[in-house]
């Protein structure tokens, strides 16, 4: 067994008195509280964790943190399945069940591994090159099945997520020694300070060492009131210092909702100043078969030993390109791991402190790794040539140098510069609003990092410019990475199976810009976003194109820094809360009458009131027929209502509507249409005059928001000298509509005052009244074409009026009717519905509403656009009525009108279509080229391969003289 648990005192994070059992690919294993899944797997000697993305190579744990490219698993089942979880971050829990991703039938025997044998067919950009004959689409399904990572959950997420907003004077991201120092200094200078720690402990890279300086800083932070937020990782820096972070809710804090679990919180933090203290990642080296299970980052092996008490192997070889390798070697040796050699590829690397007693080979590199599913040894050779030597190790550690985590700095818009001596990119000064400290600023010397972070924290707390970072302390690291002249695959990007030769191929084929390199080879993509591959990829590109890494440059880092669960972003905006619906004031009353509710825009409304066994269409036909014969009751409460008042109210409404409204007498109402500046229809409605300076404006239900918004915009931005106030009152008033020849008889039976009778109150007039102490605002108007009363009353009283009316319905033979019956009747009358019959090109003249424009003296919105030649083109699409020649076949909405079947130039389309209960025939509205001059013409209507012959008829279909609305 190569990897194993070390004896105490190793393992400062684990609690050996608290064992946990878990399964991996069905195998029962055990670990301790405090383990991650990765540390527990290593402790159990499990090396082979998964298979690679493209070539299905065996892979193991590579890192000990967020940068993990290989050791991903799927956990949970069904709704709670979570794919592609990094084992290196996943806390071990009792009963955890994890499965390898991306292998079938199993991680040990994987059919897809045959891909490895076919690697020659899978170079960078292979989908542009191979599998082209006879047709890529023949191969695509199989290739797609073999690609991809974990499997998505199969049911809606059962868990909960929430969102937290926070603000701070100074936000510090990262709670290592530099982050702690910055936070303490900021708080000491009086700033409200928020400190984010991605793990469950503060201390960063020192958190498992019981470091006295870290302990002192942490104590100071608590005393000074720094708000410390554990398990919270910043993933994005956005405009104006908005930082987003995810918090993994601890198991103790998670069980606060019965039946579901609070999993993660999204933090949206707005800070006056942001300090990034994100640390550094380790840069691996390239050598043949550097992806085998048992090859990993040196810093990771160090952390597994110290924090988790896990030896990742028994005999290690360290592939080195930096001084830090020797510190790791000494630390591992002390923990009981035998170090066979430090193989330092730097020529003449000076022995440093801690190297005493170690076997050091300088100017030497690994030329082969032995063992496929687990490292069994390696061959090393001097770079200059010379004798090869085989080392019988079971662990190979990469110590290639530092890669400061400049991601947040780059997201914030900061620039980078290349430090050649240490082969690393560091921030080139502070980014707007964000200052880096510690290792992510390129300050690797601890004392310098602490004092710089302290100065930065204090300066930002006081609103002063932060001091420059004393970059240094990383030691010498060569900007060279691969081994030349040897056989075998040298991996740049483990997650995407990108080889050094793929980068060479991209260079040969002129994909030389870093942005092209990334997209052509896929290096730096995927869940790890190239955290351990980007720098090596661009060093290689530099090598192949004779440029320095600084000349090659980096891709711009974009959020998120690490994968974010979609549920975390969505938060509580799921299900019924995704788009809350508005309900009628008398919703429950309608439900009691058997209403069939449907969603219309933002509203949940009765579509119809079907009797037992009746379809929606049949109910709508019955309801419409009853309204025309007798009377019906409709809840029109969502109708938009505005009050417009002030000395300039009349002048303002003339400006907004096509019609002239200033000439309305008090109590009179008029239909009007609203245009935008392109002259196209935005909304229609009825405007009534309540008094000299006060108007009642009904908009369409769907058009209320855009009408109210347009009114405000014109008043506030353009006609700023107009003295007008606009009050939206839609929810204040319910609207109960009573329509049909016996509508007045019905209202009169309830004791409505005689002044409202049709004889004394004409069509298109409005009157305030009182009924049984309820104040009423009654408008005589009609969207059904029958005698109609729109009774507006305070919303709370709607159910009372409905109940009283409905008590008289049976003796009258009246009905309730819903939206569907209303649609049937308005189409019979040829009344347009804005947004159904019209679209973003429809002008008032196209639907017969241009009357009076020539005579109108006052200016109005959209007027100039109506004077364009195109607006006056007689062949524009115009509203017509259509009926099928056979008198039977409905004309489907959306069907195209053309002499020939499609594909053909269309002459128009059907916009609304219903069976007319009055005529017993299908009727339709359509927009037709030059339609106003084509009455009587026979046309062909095409729909999904069928053709229906139809005739253009004059509108309306019902009651052409219009006598009924007058009662």
């Amino acid at each position, binding site marked *: 067994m190569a990897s194993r648990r070390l004896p105490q005192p190793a393992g400062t994070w684990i609690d050996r008195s608290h064992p946990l059992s878990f399964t991996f690919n069905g195998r029962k294993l055990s670990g301790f509280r405090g383990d991650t899944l990765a540390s527990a797997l290593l402790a159990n000697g499990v090396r082979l964790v998964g298979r690679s993305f493209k070539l299905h190579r065996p892979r193991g744990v590579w890192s000990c943190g967020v940068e993990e490219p290989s050791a991903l698993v799927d956990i949970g089942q069904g709704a709670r399945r979570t794919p592609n979880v990094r084992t290196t971050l996943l806390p071990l829990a009792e009963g955890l069940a994890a499965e390898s991703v991306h292998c079938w039938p199993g991680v040990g025997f994987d059919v897809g591994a045959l891909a490895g044998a076919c690697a020659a067919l899978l170079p960078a950009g292979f989908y542009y090159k191979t599998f082209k004959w006879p047709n890529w689409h023949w191969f695509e399904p199989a290739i797609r099945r073999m690609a991809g990572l974990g499997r998505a959950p199969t049911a809606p997420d059962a868990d909960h997520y929430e969102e937290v907003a926070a603000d701070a004077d100074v936000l510090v991201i990262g709670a290592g020694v530099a982050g702690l120092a910055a936070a303490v200094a900021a708080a000491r200078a009086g700033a409200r300070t928020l400190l984010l720690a991605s793990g469950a402990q503060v201390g960063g890279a020192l958190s498992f060492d019981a470091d006295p300086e870290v302990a002192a800083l942490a104590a100071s932070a608590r005393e000074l009131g720094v708000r410390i937020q554990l398990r919270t990782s910043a993933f994005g820096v*956005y*405009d*104006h210092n*908005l930082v987003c972070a995810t918090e993994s809710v601890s198991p103790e804090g998670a069980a606060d909702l019965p039946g579901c679990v609070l999993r993660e919180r999204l933090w949206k933090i*707005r800070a006056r100043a942001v300090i990034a203290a994100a640390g550094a990642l380790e840069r691996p080296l390239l050598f043949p078969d550097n992806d085998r299970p048992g090859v990993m980052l040196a810093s990771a092996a160090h952390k597994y030993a110290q924090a988790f008490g896990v030896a990742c192997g028994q005999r290690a070889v360290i592939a080195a390109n930096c001084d830090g390798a020797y510190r790791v070697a000494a630390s591992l040796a002390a923990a009981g791991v035998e170090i066979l050699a430090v193989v330092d590829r730097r020529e003449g690397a000076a022995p440093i402190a801690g190297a005493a007693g170690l076997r050091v080979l300088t100017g030497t590199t690994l030329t082969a790794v032995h063992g496929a599913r687990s490292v069994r040894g390696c061959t090393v050779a001097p770079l200059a040539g010379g004798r090869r030597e085989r080392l019988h190790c079971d662990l190979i550690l990469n110590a290639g140098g530092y890669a400061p985590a400049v991601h947040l700095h780059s997201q914030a*818009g900061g620039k980078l510069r290349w430090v050649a001596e240490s082969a690393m990119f560091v921030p080139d000064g502070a980014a*707007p609003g964000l200052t880096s400290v510690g290792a992510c600023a390129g300050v690797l010397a601890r004392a310098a990092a602490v004092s710089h972070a302290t100065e930065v924290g204090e300066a930002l707390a006081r609103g002063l410019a932060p001091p420059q970072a004393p970059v240094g302390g990383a030691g010498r690291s060569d900007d060279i990475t691969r081994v030349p002249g040897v056989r075998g695959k040298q991996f740049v990007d483990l997650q995407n199976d990108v080889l050094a030769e793929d980068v060479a191929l991209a260079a040969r084929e002129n994909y030389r810009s870093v942005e092209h390199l990334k997209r052509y080879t896929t290096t730096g993509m995927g869940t790890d976003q190239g955290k351990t591959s980007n720098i090596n990829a661009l060093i290689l590109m530099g090598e192949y194109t004779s440029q320095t890494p600084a000349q090659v440059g980096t891709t711009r880092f974009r959020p998120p820094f690490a994968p974010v669960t979609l549920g975390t972003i969505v938060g509580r905006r799921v299900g019924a809360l995704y788009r809350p619906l508005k309900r009628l004031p008398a919703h429950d009353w309608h439900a009691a009458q058997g209403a069939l509710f449907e969603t219309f825009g933002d509203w949940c409304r009765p579509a119809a009131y079907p009797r037992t066994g009746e379809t929606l269409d049949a109910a709508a036909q019955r309801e419409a027929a009853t309204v025309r014969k007798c009377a019906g009751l409709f809840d029109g409460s969502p109708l938009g209502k505005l009050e417009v008042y002030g000395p300039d109210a009349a002048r303002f409404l003339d400006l907004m509507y096509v019609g002239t409204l200033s000439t309305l007498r008090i109590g009179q109402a008029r239909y009007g249409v609203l245009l935008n*500046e*392109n002259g196209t229809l935005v909304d229609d409605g009825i405007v009534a005059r309540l008094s000299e300076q006060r108007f009642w404006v009904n908009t369409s239900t769907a058009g209320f928001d855009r009408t109210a*918004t347009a009114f*405000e*915009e014109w008043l*506030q*931005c*353009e006609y*700023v000298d107009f003295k007008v106030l606009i009050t939206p009152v839609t929810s204040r008033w319910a609207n109960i509509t009573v329509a049909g020849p016996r509508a007045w008889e019905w209202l009169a039976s309830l004791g409505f005052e005689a002044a409202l009778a049709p004889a004394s109150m004409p069509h298109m007039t409005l009157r305030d009244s009182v009924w049984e102490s309820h104040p009423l605002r009654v408008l005589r108007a009609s969207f059904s074409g029958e005698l109609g009363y729109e009774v507006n009353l305070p919303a709370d009283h709607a159910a009372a009026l409905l109940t009283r009316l409905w008590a008289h319905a049976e003796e009258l033979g009246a009905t309730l009717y819903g939206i569907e019956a209303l649609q049937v009747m308005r189409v019979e009358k040829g009344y347009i519905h804005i947004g159904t019959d019209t679209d973003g090109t429809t002008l008032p003249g196209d639907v017969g509403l241009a009357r009076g424009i020539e005579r109108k003296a006052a*200016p109005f919105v959209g*007027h*100039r*656009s109506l*004077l*364009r*030649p195109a607006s006056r083109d007689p062949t524009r699409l115009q509203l017509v009525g259509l009926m099928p020649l056979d008198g039977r076949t409905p004309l489907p909405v959306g069907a195209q009108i053309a002499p020939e079947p499609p594909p053909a130039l269309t002459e128009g389309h059907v916009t609304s279509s219903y069976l007319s209960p009055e005529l017993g025939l299908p009727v339709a509205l359509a927009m037709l080229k030059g339609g106003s001059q084509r009455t009587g013409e026979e046309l062909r209507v095409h729909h999904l391969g069928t053709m229906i012959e139809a005739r253009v008829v004059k509108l309306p279909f019902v009651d052409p003289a219009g006598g009924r609305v007058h009662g």
Partner: protein
Amino acid sequence: MMQLKCPWCGSRDESEFVCGGTTHLIRPDLTANDATWGEYLFFRDNPKGVHLERWRHAYGCGQWFNVARHTLTHEVLSVYAMTDPPPAHS
């Protein structure tokens, strides 16, 4: 996400606001020719630099106001009333 300072409500997240596009546009009158009218309706400058635009606190008080914003850095150089003249730095 930007933060804008509503003159009535103070600093709020961008998601509470709606941008109404370029401000200080002069509307030609009815006698303008078609080309001039078309220019007014459909053509806008897209500067790399300071842009004067109008915003509405749509999910708040409903107030319209003008903003001078740098399109590259999203720096808000000033917030001023609809009736105010363009600021000097434009």
